[in-house]
């Protein structure tokens, strides 16, 4: 049933964008359970790639494997290769800390530290020994995340006083302050109201200029609105991967069509 000819790269474009991340034959399992089944794909640089699929299809697992966040789950095992600019993310001498410095992450539920707004943004750069004007860095990151105007007078207040949407933008600012090259987003709007969601989606367009974004979402409309490329995962298998327009309007695979038109999932 699965289309074995699914291309690892978001093919059809005349000039394929250069890839920054590459997964090749990646299988990830929790104990005996295979969550990601032989997935190969190329993530193009400075584009937004959406990973969609029904709940439990392995999309979060796949996303978290890009910056080795699955390392903290004892039962997870992974095979296949995964590279960042050609460097093996899972090589024995690869430092996961270095990987995460290059590949930042924003989570499903906003998870600011119980510290001040300022300290939330400055914490990462500080522990990693970044030199320079910290105030400037914090301000720049908050501006980038479109949060500065709302918090500039109260950066010393606890981050937990912010609304959910503001907290999520703070988490984005926190990730940006590390100057990563890629930002992974795991359903970043699923805990937010529509207004906050719209603000974050606007923000994604801004960020695309400078960052590569991989976003997992169960909201197909969101994927259609924000992404350049879309990967459709079902039961851990990459069913279809291509330019978002094509995936949503002329899907090559029946299952994709059924999913994006809302017939299941």
């Amino acid at each position, binding site marked *: 049933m699965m289309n074995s000819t699914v291309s690892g790269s978001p093919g059809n474009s005349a000039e394929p964008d250069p890839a920054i991340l590459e997964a090749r034959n990646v299988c990830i399992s929790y104990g005996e359970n295979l969550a990601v089944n032989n997935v190969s794909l190329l993530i193009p640089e400075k584009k937004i790639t959406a990973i969609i699929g029904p709940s439990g299809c392995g999309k979060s697992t796949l996303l978290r494997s890009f910056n080795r966040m699955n390392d903290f789950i004892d039962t997870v095992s992974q095979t296949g290769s995964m590279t960042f600019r050609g460097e093996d993310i899972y090589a024995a001498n690869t430092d996961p800390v270095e990987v995460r410095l290059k590949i930042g992450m924003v989570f499903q539920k906003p998870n600011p530290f119980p510290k001040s707004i300022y300290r939330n943004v400055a914490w990462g750069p500080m*522990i990693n020994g970044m030199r320079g004007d910290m105030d400037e860095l914090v301000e720049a990151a908050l501006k980038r995340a479109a949060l500065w105007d709302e918090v500039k007078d109260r950066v010393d207040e606890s981050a937990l006083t912010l609304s959910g949407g503001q907290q999520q933008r703070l988490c984005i600012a926190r990730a940006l302050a590390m100057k990563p090259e890629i930002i992974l987003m795991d359903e970043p709007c699923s805990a937010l109201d529509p207004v906050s969601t719209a603000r974050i989606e606007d923000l994604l367009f801004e960020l695309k200029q400078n960052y590569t974004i991989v976003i997992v979402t169960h909201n197909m409309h969101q994927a259609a609105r924000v992404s350049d490329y879309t990967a459709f995962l079902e039961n851990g298998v990459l069913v279809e991967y291509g330019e978002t327009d094509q995936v949503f309007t002329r899907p090559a695979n029946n299952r994709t069509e059924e999913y994006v038109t809302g017939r299941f999932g």
Partner: protein
Amino acid sequence: MTDSALSTSPHEFGDVRGDRAANRLTSNNSHWAERLLNVLFFGCAFISVVTTAAVIIILARETWGFFQEVPVRDFLLGTRWTPLLNPKSYGILPLLSGTVLIVVGSSLVALPVGVACAVYLSEFASDRIRQVVKPVLEILAGIPTVVYGFFALTFVTPVLRMILPQTHVFNAASAAIVVGIMVLPMVASLCDDALRSVPSSLREGAYSLGATSFEVTISVVLPAALSGIFAAFVLAVSRAIGETMAVTLAAGATPNFTLNPLESIQTMTSYIVQVSLGDTPSGTLAYKTLFAVAAVLFSLTLALNLLANQVMNKYHEVYE
């Protein structure tokens, strides 16, 4: 069978209902078993309240009697405690200083080691190690305190005297060390709970910023668990204040107004033991000192427990 149930006539159905409550919402059945249980459980709850109230009332009455004869000022500020010897003197400060020595000393042992132990258990230990260490801690907590006292006297004190020969046979340091070991499991276990209640999403957030486990623990998890850790500290201190047997055995019975841990001292609790075991006639002033000291002890531990509760409640709702 289903058929017959379906074919039950409305009349029959009415009869069935009539048996129970005669088609009314009231019932003659008094549910006596329910009421009995209700009374029983209320009684159990009531006993604990009554006991507490009785303790407080008796403490207050006898303490009041004590202060009819000894001025409050002399009691709270006096530096000599000799209620059983002549010339009699009723200054509680020597007992307080003894208690402070034990509390500070035991905290120096229990808090750092307890927190370190909890950090290891919650952040670094594998599940298998946890499954072994946690029960061992609980066994440690279950050892009778008199055993600890004996351990202090026969092991800790000789070792101390080997290192510091000027140490007295009965000394505060030895008692403080074993009280520290005694409250260690409680501190470790409560701190472990506090650390584990920090949502894993915070840890993930920190790791995703390129933090090492050490940085995540020191700078995110520990601060986030601070209220729980503080509450554990307060409870540990409160337990050290109330600790009796080990202190009586190891620290001696010399009400010394000193902060030198190598000397023999007496704490409030060991004074109470000393007088209770002796043949002090009831109703005398010496007998009433028991209650005055107990009242101080009670107020201190109550205040600490309230403080711990306060801290827990105030900072607990930080994470939903």
